[in-house]
């Protein structure tokens, strides 16, 4: 069914999708870290982490985290009544800008690490 999209709908969808994706990631992350018991194995996994493709994955992951956190803060502020619902659209816009800046900062940080180490 087609229906016109609005900022509130888009933010809700992003919040949902990143939430589901991050919960799967968290499971995978806990599984991997709990199975590494030997130092050599740890070094091996760390070596894989420097692969540019893994770095790109990290950038994606960071994006999901930032989007999820900002959407969560927005909805918490609205639901608790700290910020009026009048500003829900403005909040989506401001959140998107803050999210983009944080994401870029993170990406630069990750890739700097990849180049130097």
């Amino acid at each position: 069914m087609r229906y016109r999209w609005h900022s509130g709908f888009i933010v809700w969808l992003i919040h949902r999708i990143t939430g589901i994706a991050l919960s799967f990631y968290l499971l995978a992350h806990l599984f991997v870290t709990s199975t590494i018991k030997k130092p050599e194995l740890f070094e091996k996994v760390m070596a894989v982490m420097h692969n540019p493709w893994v770095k790109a994955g990290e950038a994606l992951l960071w994006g999901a985290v930032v989007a999820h956190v900002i959407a969560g803060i927005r909805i918490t502020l609205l639901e608790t009544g700290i910020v009026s619902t009048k500003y829900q659209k403005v909040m989506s816009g401001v959140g998107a800008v803050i999210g983009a800046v944080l994401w870029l900062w993170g990406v630069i940080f990750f890739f700097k690490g990849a180049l130097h180490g």
Partner: protein
Amino acid sequence: MSKKVYTFKIKRYLPGENPPERWDEFKVELDSMSRVLDGLIKIKEEQDGTLSFRKSCAHGVCGSCAMKINGKNGLACQTLVKDLPEVIVLEPLPALPVIKDLVVDMSSFFEKNELVIPYLVNNDPPPERERIQYPEEQEKIVESITCIMCGSCTTSCPVFWSNQKYLGPSALLKAYRFIFDTRDQATKERMERIVKESGLWRCHSIFNCVEACPKGIDITRHILELKRLAVKMGLKGELK
């Protein structure tokens, strides 16, 4: 007034035909101040008498002509054609069973409205004149009173699309209208009804209802106030 030819692309549903669904296009000449409803009436009178749609007051009061106009719910009598592109796409309200063309079965929508006890409950003996309400008390509910129950909000809600049992913004707004009415005494009973599964907590503040409401009511704000009241009452152990 300048005249212009508009193409009405209408989603038809004709129960007797196979397949019952199809898209029809009608070209209609309308002046710039015409409403979508004027176009529909013109089509029915001059081109296809079998086209079905609901209408009554034609002035944004009765709520009968709610439909999906160019991908967004609204009233056909309140939407001017000059504000739309040359191709006007009309569909019935989403997520409700279609009876014919743009006419949907609103029974479940009104049943949900009844669930929230949509009338004033006051067991005190009636005073000589009316039950008094001060302007500042009226202020709290005045926005919710303007609801015309057209169904645009509930049928625009993604939660309702996926769960037809969900009370929906319209019924919750009605609950708010009486819960925050200082003359009413059935707050506890109403709250207990709306906090059940498929009730208040299914609202995810998506704001589609606010976007769709032809009366410009900030429905989400009202639902959020109900949520906060539910938390307060729940913490005090006032809700079952």
